[in-house]
């Protein structure tokens, strides 16, 4: 007979937290929410409480010394999750301040137990628990008093079938603190400051009975409360197409599909690299517009280096008609996981199949400095997460024309994408002309031609090769010296050195 106990897991109501916890919070667990002042402990506790509390599963929020309850109610009310209607119905606040002012740990425990017996709560919060401990201990107390107090409190709460949260200010997690030992769950909140930026991070240091997602997870506090960003799934799409059954999608630019070998394979990531003004965003808009024309929705993630840059009318129409979802976060200090959550939300909302990220340079600047150091790794996560969603991605990359070497992205990230299109300026006949080439399409034939293209009101027009020119990639091509060509005029003689 298999009669193992089944532990119910409670959905915390904090977006992303259940995933990080490994499926929710175990019922009747005894948890510590810890961290330095201002890191969001009380907010996290309130958000969980209002999400979980019902008249049948009431919550008791015990306030001890520390933040005065009036102020706590004043500030917590600013969050959307704070429900006035729940107060004294499913949520009860009780202040223990008066009793713990001069009490010892026994007195504190008795008072907590009395409140729990009075209200029979299913959820108990003690804020701040550190105040309980500080108020209850005196130099005369034997050192193992706190340990005993913790064990008794933990035992009583579990026997009363209460899921318990102790909220406390702790600065170092390496203390051999009996509170940490007795707790079933240890949620540690941090504020990571680097130069002028601050990123909030959360870590599940311990959770008995289930596998949590290890590491630091960034989170953000907005009016809606806390939003945790679980790591972008690095799981690769298992439905990777093999060469035989590649489905190709049109780009919306005549003749470019030919150059790609019949269109861009669905599910691929394409890097469009080129200098400023070369038409990367126009190509990206054409890609989305073509999708919309074929009934495919898209997502446009704007990471422009200059905000309020006017977008093309075609793109605005697509966004306004909700054929294309816009991700345009102005939030400072983004993390890669947050960006993936934002993109994924739009992708799933619209069942989008085409995604544009414009541009990688702006994206890098939008990230908090702490994440920029691992930008290549972040990009890999982003591309993998989008690949797992099954979408086709177009990323633009600002690439300064450097005629002395052939580069496709300033990050050394070209290997991350499945396909690459490069755009360049060249000088011919005292005019700046544009060239485009398909550099790579993984597992597919593609053109090796350098094609001239122009941009007009209707978009990008891919033209012909310039077979009478050579040295195009150097930016200053010369006319080929044919036997019947007597003019011998080079359009421009290349001066020595161009570093």
């Amino acid at each position, binding site marked *: 007979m298999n009669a193992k106990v089944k532990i119910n897991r409670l959905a915390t109501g904090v977006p992303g937290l259940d995933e990080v916890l490994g499926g929710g919070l175990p019922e009747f667990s005894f948890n510590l929410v810890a961290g330095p002042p201002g890191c969001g402990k009380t907010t996290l506790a309130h958000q969980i409480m209002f999400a979980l509390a019902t008249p049948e599963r009431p919550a008791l929020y015990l*306030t001890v010394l520390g933040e*005065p*309850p*009036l*102020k706590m*109610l*004043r500030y917590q*009310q600013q969050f959307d999750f704070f429900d*006035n*209607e729940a*107060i*004294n*119905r499913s949520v*009860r*606040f*009780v*202040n223990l*301040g*008066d009793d713990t002012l001069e009490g010892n740990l026994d007195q504190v425990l008795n008072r907590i137990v009395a409140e729990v017996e009075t209200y029979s709560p299913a959820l108990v919060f003690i804020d701040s628990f550190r105040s309980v401990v500080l108020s209850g201990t005196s130099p005369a107390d034997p050192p193992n008093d706190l340990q005993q107090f913790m064990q008794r409190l933990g035992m009583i709460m579990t026997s009363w079938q209460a899921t318990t949260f102790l909220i406390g200010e702790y600065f170092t997690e390496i203390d051999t603190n009996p509170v940490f030992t007795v707790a079933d769950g240890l949620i540690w909140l941090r504020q990571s400051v680097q130069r002028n930026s601050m990123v909030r991070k959360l870590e599940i240091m311990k959770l008995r009975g289930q596998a949590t997602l290890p590491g630091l997870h960034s989170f953000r506090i907005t009016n809606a409360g806390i939003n945790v960003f679980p790591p972008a799934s690095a799981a690769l799409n298992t439905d990777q197409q093999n060469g035989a059954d590649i489905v190709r999608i049109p780009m919306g630019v005549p003749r470019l599909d030919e150059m790609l070998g019949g269109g861009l394979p669905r599910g691929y990531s394409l890097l469009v690299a080129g200098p400023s003004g070369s038409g990367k965003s126009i190509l990206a808009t054409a890609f989305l517009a073509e999708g919309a024309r074929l009934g495919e929705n898209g997502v446009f993630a704007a990471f422009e280096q200059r905000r309020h840059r006017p977008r093309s009318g075609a793109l605005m129409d697509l966004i306004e008609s909700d054929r294309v979802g816009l991700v345009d976060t102005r939030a400072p200090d983004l993390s890669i996981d947050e960006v993936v959550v934002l993109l994924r939300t739009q992708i799933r909302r619209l069942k989008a199949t085409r995604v544009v990220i414009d541009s990688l340079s702006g994206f890098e600047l939008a990230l908090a400095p702490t994440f920029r150091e691992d930008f290549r790794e972040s990009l890999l996560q982003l591309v993998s997460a989008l690949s797992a969603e099954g979408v086709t991605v177009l990323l633009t990359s600002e690439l300064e024309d450097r005629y002395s070497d052939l580069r496709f992205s300033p990050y050394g990230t070209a290997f991350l994408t499945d396909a690459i299109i490069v755009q360049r300026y060249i000088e011919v006949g005292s005019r700046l002309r544009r060239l485009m080439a398909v550099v790579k399409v993984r597992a597919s034939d593609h053109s090796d031609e350098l094609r001239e293209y122009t941009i007009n009101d209707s978009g990008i027009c891919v033209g012909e090769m310039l077979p009478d020119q050579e040295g195009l990639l150097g930016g200053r091509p010369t006319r080929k010296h044919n036997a019947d060509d007597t003019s011998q005029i080079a359009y421009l003689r290349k001066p020595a050195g161009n570093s």
Partner: protein
Amino acid sequence: MSIEKREPPRIVATLAFRVGGSTNSTHIADAVAQIWSEAAFALTPIIGQEGVAALLKRSLHLSSSAHAWLSIAPPTVSKPIDLETLKSLIAGQTALEATAGSSALFLQFYGLLTTLIGPSLADRILESAWVDPSSGETAQDPSL
């Protein structure tokens, strides 16, 4: 502090109801003390005795500009307001002034509480004190 509300707050309405047209200042003083105790009973578990005492002290201070006889706040922080002193002060006024001063005190108290935690939460917490002012009774248990 301006308090704009179409209806008087329940604490003021309760006072008006219980005092009625009384011309007996002692009766008014008893009603004020009783209503205050009921409000304190609802608030103390949530914000603590000190929190409630601080609110009363501030309300007295604010009301005393129009009713100077209400300026009885003790000078020390820790010393709680003596309700008996408040009662005797009210009883010493004419019925008209006792009612006006007490109403002003409760209005200031309600205004202060709503400024801090908003009218919705203030009403939610205080509703257990008086279910309906016209009943004249303290609610026993609103959940029953």
